[in-house]
Each structure stands twice: as C-alpha cells, then as structure tokens.
C-alpha cells in the first residue's frame, strides 16, 4: 500500500514536471522592435549578439556644405570617391567628393537643371542616379517621366522616355525610379507600377524589352477558388500579378541585383533579393548553412505593432567578393551576407541615435565603407569596418578565392574576439579538411552542427582509418574465424564424448 502511494506520488510529480516543462523549454525568441546591437542567428535559430562589425564614422548632411539640408532624398550612388545624392525634395543632384588624404568631404556641385537645346530644363523629383563606367551619368528624373543621359560634366546627351510599345499600357505614365547601366551598355530602369520586370533600353534610348519579371506565385487554394468562381466573382478577386522590384544595383561583374519588397506570404518563398543574369534568370546562390538558406532578412518578427512583418529590403550593395549587404527599410537594419548566402551580421535599427535611421532608403559603398541615406532626416551615415569586421571580411575574401589556410588564420582572430561565430568554426574546419586533418575538421564541424561537411570529413577519415588499420582488421577477422572454427570442433568433440559416456 505504501509503495503504491509512493509510486502514485512519483507519477504525479512526473506529470507536474511535464506540465511545467514548456514554460522553460520554449525560451524567449526575439520579438519586434529595434535592437541596438550587432547580431546573427545560430544553428538553433536563436539571435546571438556579437561585437560590432561596423561603426559609425561620419554623418553627412547638406547643412555641412552650406547648401541647405536634403529634403527627402531617395537616391545615393557612389563611384570611386564621388558621392551622388538625389535630393528629391529639392529637385537637385548633389555631388560630394571624399578626400582620402585628409578624410574630409568636399562639395563639388549641385545640379538643378540641364540645358536641353539651349533651354534649361529643371529636374523634377529625381529618384536615382547612376554613373556609368565610361563616366556618363544617368538620372531617373521621375516626375518629368524621363531618364536623362548626361556626360560626366552633366551636359545633356539624350533622354530615355516612355516606350512607344504595345507592351506598355497607354494610360500608364512612365515614372522611372531606379536604374543601372550594365557593362554591355544596357540601361535597366525600374519604373513605378511596372511589374513586367526591369525595362531594358539601349544607350540611345530605344526600348528593347523587359528583363527578369518575377514569376507569379499562385497559392493552390486561391487557384482552386478562382477555378470555381463565376465571372463576376473573379472580377472582384485580386489579380495574380508578378510583384514589382523596388531597387536595382550592379555588381563588379556587371550582374544586376534586384530587391523586392511588396511580396505577401513568407519571405523565404519570395526571394526578396535576386541576382539576375543577362536573360533575367535569378542566379543568386542560396547555399547557406543552417535552416533558412535563402537570404531574406530577419528570421522572426511580430505581426503587430509599429514594426511588424518580415524585413522589406529597399536597397542592396555588392562587394568584390560577391558578398552583399541588404538594407531593411522597415527596421532600418543592414543584413550582410557572404557569397553563399550565409548571414554574416546584422546591425542598425530605427531611432534617432547614431547609427540608426528613421527611414533608410538607399545604401551604397566606398570600398568596404557603407553609406546609408535616411529619407526622413536627410542625412547620410557612414559606417566603417571595425577590426572584428575587417577580420571577417578578409577571411571571406580569402575563402572566396580559395585560400582556406589564410582565411583560417583570420578566423582564429575572429574567434578570439567572438567565440560564438559559427562561420569561423566552419571556415577553420574547411581549412583542416583541405590540410587532410580530418579528425580536426570533424570536431570543428560537429561544434557547429554542419552535418553535410562533417559527413564529408568523416568519410575521408573513415577511409584513412581503414587504410591505416587494414592489417589489424584482416588479422582480427581471420583470427575470429579460426577461433570460432576451433571452438566448434572442441564443442563437437566434447558432445561426442558426453554422448559416449552417457
């Protein structure tokens, strides 16, 4: 009876434990709201804080140059040391040059109008500017429904207008908002309300077609309802249209990167960041290590409050090692990815403090320094790499060109500053694998749950182990066989003897 009572008690205790468990097991995941720190996501999908990879080194406003503050600027473009700002609200382009030697910013010129056929033609809310490799400048003069092609001194060459083409609806105005010119002199324009992809023009302004329309995503249930709906019901339903891009950027190889922010549904299905090749196919590598391989910003978000929903990328900038940084307009965060799609670090946020933005709209880089344009404050914030960020960046550069050992040295430095950095372990494992230290590589991969690479290292280690111990294995097997045979014979003899005696 007593035992039974005790057992019941134990059972009840176990039950209580079971019910108490979820509270501690769920843990705390990140919610919404700006964070003031640099972070990354671990294998378990948890937000992990880390040292700052970028720090704010300068803040630039129009006031600094005595030309009045920028009024809701939308475009930022940097080539070499030249910083172009589309001061949309003041209808002008401002050119600033950074002086390397003394670290100052010098005002070069502001352009409010161009001379066309001897008559000045003022700009009207320009949204983007691009300097071509040849030095020619392209301005998306949005409210004037044109793209201006200028030479390097802002002298008018020709303009790109609304295409006289059946594929472009007559009643739709041409509002070019973002543009790039690739290495083979094709102009790609993202125009407002155009969802057929990027509009492609030749340099002399001839419309040649659309490029890289995002495929229409149809929900199977929506499709089903649409199938059984009547004609009039169908008219009321939302149309399945491709989502339009909101920004474009060019990498050093001449590939076009495009961002997209008007998707509905989970962002991992929307591919909000794309690398388009010449025919408009998305060729971005989505080969990230853990869980969510595709780069799409934050992994968790709340669905209510001021900052709800997934990250909405507004701009992207690509480095020489094919790594890229995306700007999340919604939360003012910068997401840095490597060329495989691994998240390196996230920083920034919404706020009035240094390194925060009220409405970050544009992003560009000068070397490895990042410049972020804030639409609301009209200020440009410059970020520079910290020593920690520099190590990561250099390690990535070496990894990109295949120098795993050199990158492993830098990963060591990274680990000295941040022992939680998963990619450093993986990078060291990669170097160890290359150096045929399979055992070491396995331990690195195991530490960070990289199953696939662990498998590779393990299969090599297994092969090596068998090759080293082949003699012992064969001797062991043969002796086992002989032993069992002898044992069998002995048993047989014994049995026979037993049979004889009985």
């Amino acid at each position: 009876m007593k035992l039974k009572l005790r057992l019941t008690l134990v059972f009840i205790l176990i039950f209580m434990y079971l019910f108490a468990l979820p509270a501690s097991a769920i843990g705390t995941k990140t919610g919404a709201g700006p964070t003031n720190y640099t972070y990354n996501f671990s294998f378990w999908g948890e937000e992990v804080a880390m040292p700052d990879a970028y720090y704010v080194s300068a803040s630039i406003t129009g006031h600094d140059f005595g030309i009045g503050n920028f009024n809701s600027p939308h475009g930022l473009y940097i080539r070499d040391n030249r910083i172009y700002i589309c001061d949309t609200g003041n209808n002008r382009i401002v050119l600033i040059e950074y002086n390397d030697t003394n670290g100052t910013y010098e005002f070069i010129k502001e352009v409010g109008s161009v001379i066309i056929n001897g008559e000045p033609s003022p700009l009207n809310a320009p949204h983007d500017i691009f300097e071509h490799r040849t030095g020619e400048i392209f301005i998306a003069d949005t409210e004037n429904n044109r793209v201006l092609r200028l030479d390097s001194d802002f002298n008018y060459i020709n303009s790109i207008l609304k295409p006289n083409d059946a594929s472009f609806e007559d009643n739709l105005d041409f509002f070019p908002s973002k543009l790039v010119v690739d290495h083979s002199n094709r102009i790609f324009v993202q125009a407002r309300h155009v969802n057929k992809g990027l509009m492609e023009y030749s340099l002399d302004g001839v419309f040649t077609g659309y490029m890289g329309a995002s495929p229409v995503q149809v929900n199977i249930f929506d499709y089903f309802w649409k199938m059984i709906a009547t004609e009039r019901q169908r008219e009321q339903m939302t149309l399945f249209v491709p989502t339009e891009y909101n920004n474009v950027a060019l990498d050093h190889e001449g590939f076009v990167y495009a961002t997209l922010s008007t998707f509905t549904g989970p962002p991992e299905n929307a591919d909000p960041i794309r690398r388009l090749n010449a025919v408009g196919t998305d060729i971005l590598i989505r080969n990230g290590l853990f869980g969510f391989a595709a780069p799409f910003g934050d992994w968790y978000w709340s669905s209510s409050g001021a900052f709800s929903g997934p990250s909405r990328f507004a701009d992207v900038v690509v480095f020489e090692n094919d790594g890229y940084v995306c700007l999340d307009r919604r939360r003012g965060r910068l997401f840095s990815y490597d060329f495989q799609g691994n998240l390196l670090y996230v920083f920034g946020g919404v706020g009035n403090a240094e390194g925060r933005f009220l409405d970050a709209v544009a992003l560009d880089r000068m070397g490895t320094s990042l410049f972020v344009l804030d639409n609301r404050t009209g200020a440009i914030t410059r970020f520079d790499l910290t020593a920690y960020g520099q190590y990561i960046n250099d390690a990535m550069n070496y990894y990109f060109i295949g120098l795993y050992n050199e990158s492993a040295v830098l990963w060591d430095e990274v680990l000295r500053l941040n022992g939680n950095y998963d990619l450093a372990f993986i990078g060291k494992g990669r170097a160890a694998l290359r150096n045929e230290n399979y055992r070491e590589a396995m331990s690195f991969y195991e530490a960070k749950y990289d199953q696939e690479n662990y498998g590779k290292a393990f299969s090599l280690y297994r092969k090596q182990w068998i090759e080293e111990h082949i003699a012992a294995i064969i001797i062991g097997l043969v002796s086992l066989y002989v032993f069992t045979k002898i044992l069998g014979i002995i048993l047989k003899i014994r049995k026979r003897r037993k049979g004889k005696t009985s």
Partner: protein
Amino acid sequence: MIAALKQKSTYTTLGGQLKYSLYCMFHPADGFWCLTRENRASVASANILLLIYVIVEILKYNVTSFQFVFKHPEYYNALFTVLSVVLPIFLWSIANWGFTTLFNGKGKLSDIYVATIYAFTPHILLNAIGIVISRVITYDEGQLYRTMLTIALIWSVMLALVAMMQIHDYTLLKAVSTSIVAILGIGFILFLFLLFFSLISDAIMYFISLYNEIVFRFY
C-alpha cells in the same frame, strides 16, 4: 541456437520470456496467441523490455551521431524522453482496454500492456543497431539509417495490430477499428487530464486570491 529459438518450450524462465520477444517478431500470429495464454511472457519481462526501450531511446539521443539526430543541449531533458516512451504505452494500454472490454475483447489490461511492449521489439532492436550504424556511416549514406528506422516502425505497428487481433481474438478489421478508436481515446484521456489540471490550478488560484484579498483588507 536458432533451432532452440524455434521451440516454444524453451521460454519458461524470465530470460526465456525475454527471448520470446524475438520469436514473436517473426511468428506474430502464433507468438502473440501464446504470449499470455501459455505464460510465455509476463508483466515482469514486459517491464524489463520497456526499461530496455527507454534506455535505447535515451542512448539514441545521446550516442547517435549528430549527423542524424539533433538534441538541443540547452533544452534536452532525459526525463522527457522517458515519458515520451512510457506515457504513450500506458495510455494506449488503458484506452485500448477500455474500449475492447466493451467490444468482446478477451485481453486483460496486463495482456494488452505485455503484448504492446512485445510488439515493439523490432523497434527497440533496430533502434539499438541504428545507434551503432550511425557512428560508422556518413551524412550521404543517411538514407540507410532512416530507412531502417522506418522499417522498424512499420514492422512494430504491424506487430501491434496482430498482437491486438490475437490477444482479443479479433478479426483484422475489428482490430484496426478498435485501435483507431483507442487512439481517439488517448486524445480524450489527455483532454481530461488537461481539463483536470487547469481546473485544479484555477481552483488553487481562487483560494490564493481569496487569501490575498483577506490579507490586504485586514492589514
């Protein structure tokens, strides 16, 4: 040795009863019919098998190569693993017994318990083998491991069905239908538990708040 396994008369001691689980794996109809009717297995041997099952499950999470099984070290709780094995078997036995007694089932509660655990022998065995295999195969060869575990599960579920047929002297159709009802019954039992605990906690909260009200009023 295999010849000895085939003779049912060898299964009289506790060790023999445990060995009988191997016989049931390959001769389910015959094996489960005699399981309790001829005392080939007892609650004691079933308890030992259950203990082995629990140990194998715990080892599975701790010894299997991380290429195949993940365990979040921060949140891992061996007690939870124990419960995840023991609780379903207990609930299943109770729910199944509850329904089959109403539908002409011949089995007692202990019969159902013993037969269920014996039916899970392949699952225990193949899981144990899987732990060893996982240490020598790589991620790319993981299909072998996963296929083995899937086979183990299917095999065990089929054995459990046959066991229910034989224990209760049912046709296959009746065994399947009562099993489905029993699974629904498990859900019902869990629901009652949840209701019970939430009501209890509400009641306790009521008295706590009552106490607080009184304390605040008179201080």
